[in-house]
């Protein structure tokens, strides 16, 4: 390594070490990380951990309260709630990731196009965003599901569409701040095209806010998808989905409260995990906000 390379890489190494130190000192990130490892582990190893098949009915075991044989009890069809909650983690995480992925893909596309090109493109995209933000989000999701038809995958698409304007607005703002910077001007000056400037110079510099928002919205996307299933617009029985399990549990709330308690607890723990990581990352990546969270 030459002396110049060493001089350039030293501050980078120091910044990386500083970030790592902050990372391991952030209780939010550590607790959130541990929670999510447990949730993701449950989802990945559900087949190995679950003592029963999540959709197998056993009428002799109907509505059993929690016991060593059935840790979270059983439902009205004698299905083991613990096994269903474990398999439900797969669906919940999948729903969160798919919905968030759709929102990020569409939001980043529209936000970048709007912010970078400006003019009538910007006006058109932003008016569209205004219109979508005028809807109470669940009603917008319900319209999308009504158009596409009720199913789990359509619920995920609906939630993805609902979150798109928020990403578009965030990305547009970040692009507007970046596009006038000297290094973007310089790239334009040496003849780089719009695609190259956006891909090589603009996008890498707006990743931080996108990552923070994506982490925070995964948790909410999980809640919203479960909400649509709770209303009968998402997953249908016997799919072990937390929202539809809660909907079933509501009918047995006074006689078998465990049916609704454990799926709800699973949603809560998962969302807390994502929120803690999102808050931790925000503190880490945006020093202005450090100390304002909890």
């Amino acid at each position, binding site marked *: 390594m030459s002396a110049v390379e060493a001089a350039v890489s030293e501050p980078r190494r120091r910044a990386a070490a500083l970030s790592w130190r902050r990372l391991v000192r952030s209780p939010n990130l550590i607790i959130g990380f541990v929670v999510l490892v447990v949730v993701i582990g449950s989802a990945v190893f559900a087949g190995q951990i679950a003592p029963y098949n999540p959709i197998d009915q056993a009428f002799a075991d109907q509505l059993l309260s929690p016991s060593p044989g059935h840790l979270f009890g059983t439902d009205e069809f004698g299905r083991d709630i613990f096994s269903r909650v474990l398999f439900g983690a797969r669906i919940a995480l999948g729903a969160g990731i798919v919905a968030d992925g759709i929102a990020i893909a569409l939001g980043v596309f529209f936000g970048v196009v709007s912010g970078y090109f400006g003019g009538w493109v910007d006006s058109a995209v932003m*008016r*569209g965003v*205004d*219109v*979508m933000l*005028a*809807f*109470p*989000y*669940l*009603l917008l999701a*319900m*319209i*999308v*599901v*009504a*158009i596409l038809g*009720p199913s789990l995958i359509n619920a995920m698409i609906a939630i993805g569409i609902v979150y798109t304007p928020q990403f578009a607005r965030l990305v547009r703002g970040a692009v507007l701040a970046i596009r006038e910077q000297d290094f973007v001007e310089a790239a334009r000056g040496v003849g780089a095209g719009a695609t190259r400037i956006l891909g090589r110079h603009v996008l890498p510099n707006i990743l931080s806010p996108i990552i923070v928002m994506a982490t925070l919205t995964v*948790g909410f996307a999980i*809640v919203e998808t*479960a*909400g649509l299933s*709770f*209303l*009968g*617009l998402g997953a249908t029985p016997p799919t072990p989905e937390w*929202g539809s399990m*809660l909907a079933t*549990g*509501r009918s047995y*709330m*006074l006689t078998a*409260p465990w049916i*609704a*308690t454990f799926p*709800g607890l699973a*949603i*809560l723990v998962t*969302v*807390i995990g994502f*929120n*803690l990581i999102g808050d931790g990352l925000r503190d880490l990546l945006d020093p202005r906000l450090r100390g*304002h*969270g*909890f």
Partner: protein
Amino acid sequence: MLKYIARRFVQLVPVMIGVSILVFFGMHAIPGDVAELLLGDKGTQADLIRLRHQLGLDQPVYIQYVRFLAGAVQGDFGISLRTRAPAIWEIEQAMPVTIQLSVAALLFAIVFGLAVGVFAARHPRSLADTGAMMGVLVGVSMPVFWTGILLLLVFGGILGWLPLGNLLDEGMTWRHVTGMPLVDGLLTGQWAVARSAAWHLVLPAVALGFTSMATIARMSRSTMLEVLGLDYVRTARAKGVLERRIVRRHALRNALLPVVTLVGLQLGLLLSGAVLTETIFALPGLGRLAITSVLARDYPVVQGVVLIAAGIFVLANLLVDVLYAYLDPRIRYA
């Protein structure tokens, strides 16, 4: 100020036209039209053609949209496919219930959110602050439908302190003035109705407002902490002003500005949460009407509910913007 309000009001028109376009063409994209749904399996092909002509469904789509918009402006969304009553009538019956619920939830969220936030900011890094903020984290993360179920289970089922749902006690009726049983009970002196309505409102309002309460607590703690560290607060302390007076007279007023914006944002959350809360507590509001209509493919009612909910939402946001401009004159001239 009036000029500002007029300008903001004019800006709402294109947004609402955009909403109507999205709702109309969204519903239009669904396979099968209203005539088919109205006739069901009973009618012949000739009946179908006649009904389509009567309803104007044989017209070009842009004409249909203009007619829809003209009807919507006058509150005519067509006939409910489920009940055969005018869609607007169904909406009029349901809307007061949702307004009563949302206002109660918002009041709960603001009062308790500010109290928790200010308390935590006055005792930063204390055990109480940590506990309050942990509660806030749980509150922000709790799905409204689970909060509702837990509240019903604990306070309705196990403790038996509060009723398990519905607007009023079974068999109780009331004289309608606004359609909101609590308000009507108070206005007309039907104290038993007012008492029963208030009792039935507690759990749904707390369930619906819980997440907003946590969000407001979090924001007010953060802004209070910032304001309490500013120079003018230090000056007030140096002059010997009592801490309680500093918080009430000097810090809270300035810390409230971002909270006002947040309250505006919470309205969308409340209207969405109302769909779930009304389903859990069996309340005949706009949210429950929306979900019933979506499941029954009752599109005239869905269109009406969505347009009216979006209208309420944007108007409420306008109100918040006006309030913000009133509180901070710099906004008016920006």
